[in-house]
């Protein structure tokens, strides 16, 4: 589902964020992406989302070769991927419901259909009774779960998460990770960047380890 072939990324102002990274993530697989801060985890996820272009190498997502996509095609690629990013969070000028409904509006679902799917997504993350609230009024764990609901509401084939447990306590972190496992169980391909080693070791999934932009361990 996600395939990297000799991918490198060099930022204009800085040194190489990724060096010759190759791996394949099969459909329906769940893997963790780990490494120290600055190892290149976020960069790798951004390449998948086409938020950045690789300096060298090929990336394939599903049957799309990313290097061949035009600017016009990017939105449609992104619709097949759900993302949970730490810094691209919720919009505080609207309710939880409207936050989660945004991807569906963009894809053009009818309001009735969208409402049904939003409730299903909120139900999955256990926040059905919070739909009318402003996300500002929620705890950080709940906010993160709203972000996850937004990422999976349109049933993407791929789910990416960048430090989804960043500032949550261990118990909440585990709950969030279990949620990802749950989505993976129904067939979604999941890739989670996290430096919370103790937690992800305990979960016994594939681990891709980056160090200074190189993939040093896979297994």
């Amino acid at each position, binding site marked *: *589902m996600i395939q990297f072939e000799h991918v490198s990324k060099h930022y204009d102002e800085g040194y190489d964020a990724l060096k010759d990274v190759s791996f394949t993530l099969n*459909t*329906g697989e769940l893997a963790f992406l780990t490494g120290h801060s600055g190892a290149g985890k976020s960069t790798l996820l*951004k390449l998948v*989302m086409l*938020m*950045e272009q690789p300096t060298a190498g090929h990336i394939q997502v*599903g*049957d*799309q*070769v990313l290097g*061949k*996509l*035009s600017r*016009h*095609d*990017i*939105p*449609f*690629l*992104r*619709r*097949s991927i759900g*993302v949970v*990013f730490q810094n*691209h969070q919720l*919009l505080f*000028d609207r309710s939880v419901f409207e936050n989660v409904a*945004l*991807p569906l*509006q*963009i*894809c*053009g*679902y*009818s*309001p009735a259909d969208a409402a049904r799917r939003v409730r299903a997504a909120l139900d999955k993350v256990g926040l059905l009774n919070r739909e009318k609230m402003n996300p500002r009024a929620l705890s950080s764990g709940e906010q993160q779960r709203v972000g996850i609901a*937004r990422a999976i509401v*349109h*049933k*993407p*084939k791929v789910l990416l998460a960048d430090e989804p447990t960043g500032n949550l306590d261990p118990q909440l972190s585990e709950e969030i990770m279990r949620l990802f496992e749950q989505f993976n*169980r*129904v*067939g*979604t391909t999941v890739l989670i960047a996290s430096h919370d080693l103790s937690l992800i070791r305990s979960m016994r999934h594939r681990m891709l380890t980056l160090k200074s932009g190189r993939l040093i361990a896979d297994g």
Partner: protein
Amino acid sequence: MDKKRGAERVQPSRTTTVTPQPTSKRGAEQHKVDLKGHSESWMRNHMAVGKNALTKLLGTPIATVMTVAVLAIALTLPGFLFTVLSNVQNLTQGWEGEARLSLYLETSLTDEDADRFSRTLLLRDDIAAIDFISRSQGMLEFKKYSGFGDILDAMNDNPLPAVVVLLPKSRLVADLGIMRAGLQALPEVNEAVLDLEWLQRLDAMLAVAKRAVFVLGVLLGLAVLLVIGNTIKMEIESRRDEIVVSKLVGATDAWVRRPFLYTGVWYGLLGALCAWLIVQVAWLMLETPAQELAQLYRSQFQLSGLGFSGSALLLFMSVLLGWLGAWIAVRRHLREIEPS
């Protein structure tokens, strides 16, 4: 795996064959979609976005009123001057109706020839009526009114030419000028004189004034463009998060642009409505004094406001400028906002 160009569209409208993935588990349920739903959802999105944009504007009434007031002033000025000009033109068109052309015929023509010539003029379809004054007739009248009869009697020859006074059908100064030149060129005519040179001058002045109003209109139109462009630019800046998140979950450029374009159109529409109201009220206030004035001169002249076509033009131009201003702002600033 078949490699096709272009990302697979997963929006509900354009159905694409979802290539079955080689998977042991059941793939995430894909959405079934129909083609008819596309235009429907497109329409729905436009309606919702348009309504939303208006709601947002009305939700910040003070800022909106300020912007709309600036737009209204910029639109009122050319709108008002334009109607002033068209009224002045209406008025002078009434005067042009009095235009007369006098043809002084060659003195070598006999009265019979001159009479025949004047009759041929009647056949022309650009002349409504003629009045022929023969040389002898002219002499009689001159003697009667001037009191120089004795002097004229002493002369052997009648020095006065025959005169044809004609009433042209056209009331336009430009037409009259051309007609005069044409008649002047006839061999029988010594001199053709249009009595209304001053009207021509007025017409030329009106042309200059029209040009000035046009230039002013263009400048103020540019101002409208700038005001709306700047307002939209600030709006884009304040909605940066929303834009970033939308792009991240797969919004197309058109989708991101849409609310701002609608905001521009609403500004244009509101500005035009205010300007229209101001112009109409101004003319309403001028109507009574103008009518009294017209009555003093026994004139049929009636003030007219913007009228239907003027109002339509004002509305159309303003909405167009609103849309264009927003479009320029969006073009310049939206691409810079990308998730990173």
